């Protein structure tokens, strides 16, 4: 590995370094501000190093990791969203008793895992990244050891994640048994249909289990509502955005080039996509808890992403990437609002916490409304452009049945988003909790996200341009 390789790997190296520094920092002096500051500095340095690495790519750093423009784009998205989560965590934990410094350590490690996932081109780095991510998340989800729900969520996540990892490893073993190689490129070149590689297809199917679990798509979605509800709001934001972004980044690399041409894999993913869209949207209808609604809606949204994936047109990578950016911005803003409304006793996740919000805190409520409309895919938000892009990639490939399912289920979805909107704008029953000031960090993050949400919703040109330049896949 030469100097240029190391420079290309700099974003990941800096993330790893940040983890060590944060750990030592906690050992020297336990201070919430200091730890959060170190974390943010490390994330910023890592983000900036992406620009240093950009001229050197593509570069195969060992047989495990490939740093190319695609990976760098996803790294940037992951690090930026983690930074937003870190800022939100600061406000969230500052008003709570206990020791919060280790959360930042876990956060940085989880980000490192995500970074490894989006750069990996080999099953070993895939598993490595996934496990770094998962193990950090166990700790983060159950961070409030005194809250019953948090512990329940943590245990549930632990058991299901380990099970799915076991499936994944078994799938890898089968693939290795057949092909004798663990790099993605080796299976990409094989034809699946009618070949004598009898173990390959089950292998791929089992590895899809591991991916499907992390994405929370049906039938691997059972953990989603409980973990979303039980975990602290900023951690939920991380689970919902950064970790899923990383897995989709990996999925695109793993499957896009070849395997979805196989009828069996196509069928498998179609069933997952349709089931996710239907189940996510229908199950959300009966929820009164905002975090659970967002959990079920995330199931549906990753069903939409799979539709673009299945379309397999030239637009697919661009469409999926744009949708992920839109989804990340939207969900971060959503959990940002949950975070700033939460009290030191409980998260603001009951629908009643939002009743009449518009008349108490109009700006916050406007952002929340924009978030909900973005999730519903209404114009002038990024969510609409994302949905448009997905439908465009579907139409480009003439995937009409999937598109019709998408449209019909998203209308069902609209219903529960509107329910929350109505609550936000309804009359207040009585004067509720007094106004609390928004911390400047959260205000900055929420303001920035809102500007992105509407800005790219009205004028998506620059983002399209960036995605085209790094990933390709538009017209």
């Amino acid at each position, binding site marked *: 590995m030469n100097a240029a390789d190391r420079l290309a790997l700099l974003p990941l190296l800096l993330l790893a370094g940040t983890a060590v520094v944060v750990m030592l920092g906690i050992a020297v002096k336990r201070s919430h501000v200091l730890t959060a500051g170190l974390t943010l500095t490390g994330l910023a340095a890592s983000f900036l190093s992406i620009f240093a690495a950009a001229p050197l790519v593509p570069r195969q750093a060992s047989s495990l990791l490939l740093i190319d423009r695609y990976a760098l784009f996803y790294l940037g998205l992951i690090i930026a969203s983690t930074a937003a989560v870190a800022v939100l965590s600061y406000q969230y934990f500052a008003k709570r008793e206990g020791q919060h410094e280790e959360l930042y350590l876990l956060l940085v490690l989880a980000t490192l895992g995500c970074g490894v996932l989006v750069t990996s081109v080999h099953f070993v780095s895939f598993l490595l990244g996934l496990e770094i991510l998962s193990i950090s998340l166990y700790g983060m989800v159950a961070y409030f050891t005194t809250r019953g729900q948090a512990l329940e969520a943590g245990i549930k996540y632990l058991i299901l994640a380990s099970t799915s990892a076991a499936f994944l490893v078994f799938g890898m073993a089968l693939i290795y048994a057949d092909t004798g190689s663990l790099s993605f490129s080796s299976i990409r070149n094989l034809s699946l249909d009618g070949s004598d590689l009898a173990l390959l297809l089950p292998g791929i199917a089992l590895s899809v289990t591991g991916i499907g679990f992390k994405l929370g798509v049906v039938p691997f979605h059972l953990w989603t509502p409980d973990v979303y509800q039980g975990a602290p709001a900023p951690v939920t934001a991380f689970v919902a955005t950064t970790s899923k972004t990383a897995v989709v980044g990996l999925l695109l690399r793993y499957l896009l080039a070849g395997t979805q041409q196989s009828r069996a894999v196509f069928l498998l993913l179609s069933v997952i996509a349709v089931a996710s869209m239907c189940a996510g949207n229908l199950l959300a209808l009966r929820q009164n808890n905002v975090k659970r609604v967002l959990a079920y809606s995330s199931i549906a949204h990753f069903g939409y992403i799979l539709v673009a994936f299945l379309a397999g047109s030239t637009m697919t990578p661009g469409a999926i990437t744009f949708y992920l950016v839109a989804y990340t911005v939207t969900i971060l803003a959503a959990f940002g609002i949950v975070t700033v409304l939460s009290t030191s006793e409980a998260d603001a996740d009951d629908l009643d916490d939002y009743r009449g919000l518009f008349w108490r805190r109009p700006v916050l409520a406007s952002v929340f409304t924009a978030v909900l409309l973005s999730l519903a895919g209404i*114009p002038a938000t990024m969510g*609409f452009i994302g949905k448009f892009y997905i*439908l*465009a990639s579907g*139409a480009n490939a003439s995937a009409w049945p999937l598109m019709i399912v998408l449209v019909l289920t998203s*209308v069902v979805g609209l219903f529960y988003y*509107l329910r929350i909107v109505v609550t936000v704008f309804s009359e207040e029953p009585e004067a509720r909790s007094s106004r609390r000031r928004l911390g400047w960090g959260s205000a900055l993050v929420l303001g920035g996200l809102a500007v992105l949400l509407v800005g790219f919703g009205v004028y998506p040109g620059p983002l*399209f341009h960036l995605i085209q330049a790094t990933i390709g896949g538009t*017209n």
Partner: protein
Amino acid sequence: MILVLLIAILLLGGILAAISARWSTQLPRWISLAAIAVDLVLASRIWAGRSTSTSKVWYDEVDWNWVPSFGIHFHLAVDGLSFLMLILTFSLGIVAVLCSWTEIREKIGFFHFNLMWVLAGIVSVFLAIDLFLFYFAWELMLIPMYFLIVIWGHERRVYAGTKFFLFTQCSGLLMLIAILALYFIHHQSTGVYTFEYSELLGTPLSGGAELAIMLGFFVAFAVKLPVVPLHTWLPDAHTEAPTAGSVILAGLLLKTGGYGLLRFVIPLFPRAAHQFTPVALTLGVIGIIYGAVMAFSQTDLKRLVAYTSVSHLGFVLLGIFSWNSLALQGALMTMICHGLSTGALFVLVGGLQERIHTRDLNRMGGLWTVAPRLSASALFFSLASLGLPGLGDFVGEFLVLLGSYRVSVALTVVATLGILASTFYALRMMQRAFFGPNPNSWQLPDLKPREGLIMTVMILGLLWLGFYPQPVLNTFAPAMDNLERVAQMPTAALRRQP
């Protein structure tokens, strides 16, 4: 640039109105009024500055690059058809502000914000000729309308608002799929990615694809128009909305459906639309009769007026799909006059509800003696609604029937029965509410000067349209000629048929 200003002024006016509510409750009303008035003046500037040469299709246009990688343009243009719709929009916009002057007492700033933004959305729909922009505006005008219904509406407002939103959104997404299908088919045949209306015209389509894409558009417009059986959101939304919301729904939002059929469905898919004619005509006639019968059996005054819309808009569908110039002119006249007459009826019903706090016909009666001016206005607009010659609605429906007679005698006869039925429901409404004894001994103030002014202007408008509709028809003529040419309107083909 004027076209962009038209929209920007409304958007800005809305924001100013919302902010100004902090200082005064009257300021938002005046700001909204001023913004719409400025727009009306600007629109007359367009009229004065239009190019008279027949070679130019558009009076004025604005074309900016928006999302180049998808070939999306911010392209606004105005011709005779859109111009008439703009004038209708601004006139009814002023009515909407005036009629909520005393009705809306809470959250005044946010109310006017939504009012201005829904008008901005409607104006954008009438001006957009890039299909992406059109869809964008089409969806965007929903949200403020939704807020108007669910925040300031009556008892079942949340139900009505949600139903309205879901119906429109579902059909809208089907239209989006149709737009995308057209976009990619156009690319396949020409190699150009564009959402541009003028370039998509005449895209070669296979028969099946054309029919499917046409249906995608048709469903979206049919929900708005509304076409029975996609109308069920309408009685709820119209009834539960505040008066200004009902005026805008009936007067303007329904017209976007008719406008969409005229602007997009017929010119883009002439062959498929022609194949679809028998179905569309039948649906139109069903709507006419069904709306009239339902209106007759209502006891809620507002719901009654809402069902008359279903009936009147049936004539629009009948006119548009009759494929000749008489019927097209009739459809346009019906759209404009229905906006005025039904808008006025909603203002009156709203005024009545503000005074006696009920919309129940059974609890009314004998109101003429206590409020003669209000009752006389109601009589005038009921007569307009039932198609009294000399008033605008008559011209529209008469032209539609004349035109449709050439296509199908049987359907025209049935549609004429609809006019007959409208006499029943209009007179029944007058009878129950305004004539006879006054059992509840209602005492209520008559029309205030502000309301009197609205009524006078709308009465004059309907009289003008009824006696001298030629200026409107002349304005529409070039657009209609274009329509016939672009669509190669098979009037000739029809005549050739035995």
